[in-house]
């Protein structure tokens, strides 16, 4: 049974942040330890309702998959490292979201890391970005060039041409294509 102080504290916070009744109902269904852990998180990071909803869904799915409690998930080392990072609130929210995403999607995250390593190996200049599909749901790269002069544009084109000839580039597309 939820501690009444914890419940009241969360409801007060939710009212300040204008959380919807659906979010409060979802909160009310939590076990006491999970409610306490979640309250700790919202007090630390003061997420908007949308931010909280996304984090909460992943926490629940991780907990269900691993047969853990929500409190256990929030206390795990990678999650705590994100929560305790020496950064501002928004940065810590971003780090937390990233840490939860890795927990929720370990194979996908490993593939994304591999692609990021291959993209770095192309040694492209800062004004040329290669963007992989969201959730790798696709096999195309999007190329973004920021140019403020013809010379910059020529430099970008030359860098891309050179990168396209490297083994890392071939491997990049092979990974995107799901080649074994």
């Amino acid at each position, binding site marked *: 049974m939820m501690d009444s102080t914890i419940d009241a504290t969360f409801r007060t916070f939710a009212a300040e942040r204008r959380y919807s009744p659906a979010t409060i109902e979802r909160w009310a269904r939590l076990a006491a330890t999970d409610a306490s852990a979640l309250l700790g998180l919202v007090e630390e990071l003061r997420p908007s309702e949308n931010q909280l909803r996304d984090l909460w869904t992943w926490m629940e*799915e991780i907990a*269900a*998959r691993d047969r853990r409690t929500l409190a256990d998930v929030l206390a795990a080392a990678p999650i705590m490292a994100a929560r305790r990072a020496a950064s501002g609130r928004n940065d810590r929210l971003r780090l937390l979201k990233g840490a939860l995403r890795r927990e*929720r*999607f*370990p*194979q*996908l995250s490993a*593939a994304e890391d591999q692609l990021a390593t291959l993209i770095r190996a192309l040694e492209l200049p800062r004004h040329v970005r290669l963007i992989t599909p969201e*959730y*790798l*749901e*696709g*096999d195309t790269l999007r190329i973004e060039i920021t140019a403020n002069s013809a010379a910059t544009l020529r430099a970008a084109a030359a860098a891309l041409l050179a990168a396209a000839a490297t083994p890392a580039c071939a491997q990049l597309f092979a990974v995107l*294509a*799901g080649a*074994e």
Partner: protein
Amino acid sequence: MPETNAAPSAVHTRWRPESIWIEHGEEESDLARRVRTRLPEVAVEITGDLRAAEPSSFAGGKRRLVIQRYRGAFVQHCPAGTTGMVCCNYLVTNFASNCPFDCSYCFLQDYLKNNPAVKAFTNASDGLAEIDALLRAHPQRTFRIGTGELADSLALDHLTDLSSELVPFFAQRTNVLLELKTKSDCIDNLLRLDPRDRVVVSWSLNAAVIATHDEPGTATLEQRIAAAARVQAAGYRVAFHFDPLIAHDGWEDGYRDIIEQAFRHLDTRRVAWVSLGSLRMTAGLKAAIKARPQHAAILDSELVPGPDGKERVWRGVRVKMYRQMLRWLRDVDAEMPLYICMEPAGVWEKVFGEAPPDRVVAQRLVAGP
């Protein structure tokens, strides 16, 4: 030549509703009379308000049979056809709605959440007239039509005898294939009929651990496979749908085993098609699965949103599974027609090395032996 006389497993228990509701005016229909004769002990309610016949829960719908007229268009394009996906141009026709089985991943939990009662329609003849008109209007085209999209094609056949009406109708027409898709072994009527190669009976199959935990109420895999062998021996072509493929620990062993079992007693030259499909969920379906009383392990895999708004296991895992399934199926028979459901051209290219136009996919599937 494979064996065709495999000893059948014990027959799966036939579904019995706890109550029957009949639309006022349909009491003397052939269907209503037949069902009441076969279920004399089940309480019957006659109603002029079909909304009153709907139970308050999806689970409650599995216990109630509503017998009514159908008032919509019987023939529709398969709802799985979506812009951006390779499509097989399948048509669906609904002589029933909802299903007595309770598969955890079933999209009907969301699609029919507001009208969950199992329904059988009294005016199947109207549907057949609609189909006949379509076939006459396009004599140059061969259609594939299935009755197993919003219902299990055979799960109610012991009550309705619907197949006894459908098979002769389709057997007389040359530009159509009827697909009866099921997780039952309710084939008794089929064995008495001559499909004249116009009817394909198909079964959805899965890894044993998925069938056990996530397909309650269905015939066992062994019962489904035994039924397929009997139906094929009786002159029908058969088909299989490995859908949804679920990424789980041990999936390779599970799917390899079921493929071996499925084809062990079949003539693969008389397998019309095999489809593959990955678990895919709308937000509504995901919520329905999460709300089930027992944790559904199918939600544990890395499900990510796709361009059509549905969640699937991320593409790297899907392609890996499809490719492996393709290898095993090609080892069984390299000529069996195969296709993937609800995937974009990019996935087809990774798996098959090509992404043919929809009409080509459709043509290959109706090409016949």
